[in-house]
Structures are given as C-alpha cells and as structure tokens.
C-alpha cells in the first residue's frame, strides 16, 4: 500500500476532507486577499469557536438528538462572565482571581443548561428539538432580562489581550481549540462513554438491553455541548471585549451546517469528529471567501441554508441502502 493508496482510501472514507482542501486551493487562486497572512489569521480566529461549538453539537447529534440552545448558552455565559469579571459592575475586583472566577462561572452555566436539556430529554422523554428550542427561547430571554439588554464592559485586560498573546508562535485560542478537540476525540473514541454514545445513536433498544446506562449517556452529551458552548462564548466575549446578552445570535446555522456537511448522520450512530472539524473549516472558508468577494451577508445566509439542504439530500440518497426503517 503506497502512500498514494493510503491517501486515496482516506479521502474516499472521509470525502469532506478532500472537499475542504479542494475548496481552499480554489479560493486561494481565485479570490484576491484570501491567501494573505492576515486573512489566514482571520480564518483561524473565526474557525476556533465554530470548531469547539461543532464538536459539542456532534456528540448530541450522534445520539440522534439536537441542541438548538447553544446560542442562548453563549449569551448567558457571556453575561455571567461579564458580571463576574468586569471591574465596574463585577462582583469581584478586576484582578486575575476575578478572571478565574468568571471563567468558572461561564463553564458552570454551560453545565447547568446542559443538565436541564439532558435530563428533560433522557428522563422526561421530551423530544430533543422541542426541549432545546424552548431553552433557547427561555435563556436568551433570561440573558436580555438580567441585563435589561445592556452590554457589560471593562473586562480585565488579561482576558481581552489573551487572543493576541502567542506562545511558541501560536495564539492562545489555538491551544484551547487543540485541547478541546483532542480531549473530545479521546472521549469519543477511546472511552466507555464514547462507545455508549455511538451505540445509543445506532439503536437505543439494543443499547438498553445490553445494559447501557442510557440516561447517563444522554445527559453527558448535552452537558458536553453546553460546556463547549460556554468555552466558545469565552472566546467571543474576549474578542469583543464585552459581555453581551445577544452574543452569538447567528452562529447556530454555521454549527449545524458544519456537522451536517461533515457527514454526521441526523439519524444518529454515524459520524466522526474529524468530519465535523473539516465541515467547520469549510463553513469558515465559505463565509470568509464569499465575504471577501463582497457577497452580502444575507446571500451568504441563503447559500449556507442551501448547502445544508443539498448535503442532507445527498447523504439521504447516498446512504439509501443503510437508511433506518
């Protein structure tokens, strides 16, 4: 098996990676400014939060569920983080300790909302999309109500400058993204919970008979998605230097697009984190290149919607033989 064969089999098994590379080359040639160093950093900064969000969402979709509440988690985390960290309104002075407390607060928001979603789906047997749609409405309303739709400012300098610090040549968010991706990858592919996630997604009855703790599995995937959402909120908040109750409004389309383009099946049980990463990269490049060309933000929204529909259609036709009953 020569190197070329290995690459070819890899590309056949993971088509999205091939499409991603192809798209990058095409854009680099066609679109002026796409290949510049500045734009590449631009791509990296936009890609990181989307990757973290999409990784969390993949866990949920693998169990044939969906988490629509991530944008509200981003908003509430951003507001809670703002309250804890900001020096003028913050509960604690603007020192380093307040930052740790702030980050801890943001993560616990992700865990709490994740628990609420998870328990409603697992124990109360409510449909996943309705539970997360309701918590989306509730918590985005909550974020706006708490702050009376005012932003929170004066976040500690340490947080605000963090994205621009680099360590061994790479900016800090990159390390965060790598850390999140590898730990999730190991969790999904090397641990008991990972096997259980795939099994529950493939056939929930068989999993129950084979002694899998289904409520534990479902609750943990929603908590993972919640924590990923609050981590992404940390990045957005640092980047915009404000705790905003309407943070991350338009990100849901990109996240679901990334997971679906990647190839993860909506019926559950089938999908890989590498696919989602490639899907997220493609969505970011798509967004960036169409923007550079001057296409309006709304046409891009339409293009993304169309791509989700096309890919779902293609996956449906492609996997005719293996579709579920």
């Amino acid at each position, binding site marked *: 098996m020569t190197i070329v064969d290995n690459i070819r089999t890899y590309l056949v098994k993971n088509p999205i990676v091939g499409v991603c590379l192809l798209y990058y080359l095409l854009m680099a040639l066609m679109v002026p400014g796409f290949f510049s160093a500045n734009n590449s950093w631009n791509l990296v900064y936009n890609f990181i939060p989307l990757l973290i969000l999409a990784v969390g969402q993949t866990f949920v979709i693998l169990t044939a569920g969906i988490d629509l509440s991530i944008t509200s988690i981003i908003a509430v985390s951003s507001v809670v983080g703002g309250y804890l960290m900001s020096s003028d309104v913050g509960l604690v002075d603007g020192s380093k300790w307040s930052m740790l407390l702030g980050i801890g607060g943001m993560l616990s928001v992700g865990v709490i909302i994740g628990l609420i979603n998870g328990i409603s789906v697992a124990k109360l047997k409510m449909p996943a999309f309705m*539970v997360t749609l309701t918590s989306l409405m509730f918590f985005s*309303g909550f974020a706006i109500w708490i702050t009376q739709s005012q932003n929170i400012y004066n976040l500690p300098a340490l947080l605000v400058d963090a994205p621009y610090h680099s360590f061994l040549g790479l900016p800090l968010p990159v390390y965060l993204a790598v850390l999140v991706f590898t730990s999730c990858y190991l969790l999904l592919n090397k641990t008991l919970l990972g096997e259980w996630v795939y099994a529950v997604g493939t056939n929930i009855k068989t999993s129950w008979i084979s002694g899998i703790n289904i409520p534990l599995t479902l609750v943990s995937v929603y908590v993972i998605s919640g924590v990923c959402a609050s981590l992404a909120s940390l990045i957005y908040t640092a980047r915009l230097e404000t705790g905003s109750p309407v943070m991350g409004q338009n990100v849901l389309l990109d996240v679901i697009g990334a997971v679906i383009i990647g190839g993860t099946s909506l019926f559950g049980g089938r999908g890989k984190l590498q696919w989602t990463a490639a899907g997220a990269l493609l969505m970011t490049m798509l967004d960036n290149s169409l923007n550079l060309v001057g296409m309006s933000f709304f046409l*891009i929204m339409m293009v993304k919607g169309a791509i989700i529909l096309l890919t779902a259609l293609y996956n*449906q036709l492609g996997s005719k033989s293996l579709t579920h009953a």
Partner: protein
Amino acid sequence: MIKRLSPYSTVILLVLVMLLFSSLSDGFLNGRNFMNILIQVSGLAIVAAGMTLVLITAGIDLSVGSIMFLAGVVSGKIVVGGAPLWLALPIALLVGVAVGWVNGIAVVRFKIVPFIVTLATLYMGRGFGLYISETRAVNLPESFLAIGTFKLLGIPLPIVIMVLVLVVLHLVLTKTTFGRQLYAIGNDKRKSVKAGIPVNKLLIKVYLISGLCAAIGGFVAIAQLGAISPSFGNQSEFMAIAAAVLGGTSLFGGKGGIFPGTFIGALLIQTIQNGLVIINADPYLYPLITASLIFVIVLIDSREKFGSHV
C-alpha cells in the same frame, strides 16, 4: 400532576390569566382591549392553524417565520414599486406556497428529517428576504395600512380573515377525508399506507397549507404594522408551535384541533403579552413566561405519550 391535557384545560388557564390581569390593572378588562387582543392575535392564529396540520402528521415546520417575512417583503416591494394593491396578496400567497412546496418535496420525496429541512428553508427564506430588502425596513404605502384598519360590517378586517381561515381549516380537519386521514397518518404512518391512504400526496399538501397560512398570517400582521422590519417574523415559528401545543396538539402526531385547541392557545399567548404591557410589567419578562409555560405543556404531552414507565 394533570395527567390528561384536554383542550378545555387551556380554556381554564386562559380565564385564570384574564382574571389575574384584570385584577392587576383596570385597563385590561374592557371591550376595546379585547378587540385589541383579537386584532393582534389574528396573524399568529392563522400561522398556528397551518402549523397544527403539520404537527398532527407528526411533522414540524420551522420556516413559517421566514415565510411571513419573505412573503411580506416580496409583496411590499412590488406594491412600493407601483404594482396595484390587490396584486400584493396573491404574490404573498405564491411565495408561501413555493416555500411550502420545497419543504414538502424535501421531507416527503427525499425523506429528510422535517426539522432540518424547515431549518434550512428558514435561513434561505430569511436570507433571501433580507437580500431583497437590503435590511431596509420596507415602508408600505398608506393603502396597505388601510387594510389593517379597514372595518367590514364593523369588524376589523384582520379578525375577519382570521376567522375565515380558522373556520375553513377546522372544517377541513373535522369534516373532510383529507382531514381525518391526517390523524391516521399522525398516529401510524405504516398502518396508513396499509389502509390505502395516499400518505405522500397528503403530506406535501400539509406543508403547502402551512406555507400558505404563514403567508396569509404575515400579510395580516404587516397590514397592521405598515412596515416590514428585518426582524419581522423572528421566533414566530416558536410562537405558532407554542399556540398549537398549548391548545392540545401533540408533538408526536395524531392529536390536536383548531377550535377550541389552537385558537385558544394563540389567544392565551397574546393575552399574556397584552396583559404584561397593560400592567406595565418589564417587557423582557415576556419570553421567560411563555417559554416556561411551553416547557410545562410539552412535558405533560410527553408524559401522556410515554406514561411513567421508563
């Protein structure tokens, strides 16, 4: 805990809410305010009626919000561009039917999960609408506003249109073959095929009707507003689902109705909103109250479906 959620329990809830608000402020309990509520609820009720049909077949349509927006923007642009006013409504309906058709074909023919199809069309519709209007508020001419405030035999036009649409859909659901077969499909799709029901044909029609209702509902709401802002129709799909579920329609299919169900559900939501404004409560409270009410009702709906056994 309330085990059985009959549509009548929603009526009781509505009366309780009305009593609560009238005790909190005397501006609430009078004819003019009720007329206000009825006018303001007309758009939502029409959209929720279309949504009820989709929910009865255990499907979902998240794109109604952006259909309201797109239909409004398209017809608004045409009227502002000089076309005659009567042309606006047919154009809006055409847009609704077109998006409904796309939803139907994708869900039925290509067997894609309904909420992903309608989520995609939601963004496509919203994106296209914003592109046409370049996020500028489309200020409609006076004549448009006239429709909103026009009174037919003393009853404001929006209420007339609402009653018309709801009565027609109610009759369709209760009195026609198409309607009764929807309940069969919602109960068990495989059994319906075995019983000889043309399942695919009916499901496409259901998404067409939902698109149509979204367009009519949007038109009626715009006629009151006089202008279409870029965020028009946002979260209307959630309110429509909420109104149907509050009215006893089950998310799992096979159960639900327009009268007294969805209409009362829509009234309940609008009354809460109206009441909160009348008692000058913090407007930001509104989504919190509606969302928690919906959560409880969906919880009861799920408990009924799966019972207490794991």
